[in-house]
């Protein structure tokens, strides 16, 4: 790696979070999850699970579409940046040719 890249490595060294970070995470993970659904019986439970699956599947599609959109956006910006940098290069060539 170059000196410049060494500089970046040093700037991005790992840091510790606050001292009680792990305790807070474990405390949150250990909280009991209340489930109150049996009042309406098995049929309601089946419908709830089916609905959750549909939402999960739909969410999966939405996530993929979102990911595609972000990738397309990044490509579009990259394309415009390349276009502008090449035009700037042509500008310099034109200036050089006119001297």
């Amino acid at each position, binding site marked *: 790696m170059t000196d410049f890249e060494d*500089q*970046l490595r040093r*700037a*991005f060294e790992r840091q510790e979070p606050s001292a009680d970070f*792990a305790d807070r995470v474990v405390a949150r993970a250990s909280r009991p999850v209340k489930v109150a659904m049996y009042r309406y019986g098995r049929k309601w439970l089946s419908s709830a699970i089916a609905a959750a699956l549909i939402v999960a599947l739909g969410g999966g599609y939405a996530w993929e579409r979102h990911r595609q959109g972000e990738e397309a956006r990044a490509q579009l910006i990259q394309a415009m940046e390349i276009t502008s940098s090449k035009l700037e290069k042509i500008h310099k060539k034109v200036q050089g040719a006119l001297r």
Partner: protein
Amino acid sequence: MTNSLAQEAGIQPAAVGITQAFEAAVREHQAMVYSVVYHFLQDRSAAEELAQEVFLELFRHWHEIESRAHRVYWLRKVASRKCIDQTRRRKFRNHVSLEETPEPFTWMPATDPLLKRYIEQLLGKLQDVPRMIVILRYQEGLEPAEISELLEMPVATVKSHLQRSLALLRKKLSFVSPEEKP
């Protein structure tokens, strides 16, 4: 918790609950996850909050983790995705482009905390995906092929983002380091 993971951690599976193993995993990887998120978001309290969410998701998917290496890969992947999702919600969008960021006025040595902070700020001006790529490359030491797999994008795209980001960063930093001066 799988037997393989418990054995890899040197812990007897029969004697340990998931919570204890999970706590050990949090302590082992908290610096990595927190730093990826902090360098991306540039806000300590927001970084701790998001890092917590990453670990909570690990807890929910604990049974899917096959090894320590898998866990590290999984945490990096989820942390990257959550960071990029966060910027899509415009919560931490920077409104000043990298080109508009003013340079410092004097030369600073590489170990100076001010320079370190300046470099962090420059990183914050990059767009979300290139910013994460720089973090994964220089904080985590990942190769472009590994970054490509993590972020699910072509290696050529990763290399292109890296090249352009380094050029921008180098341009902004070039005058602060005497060895870069002609």
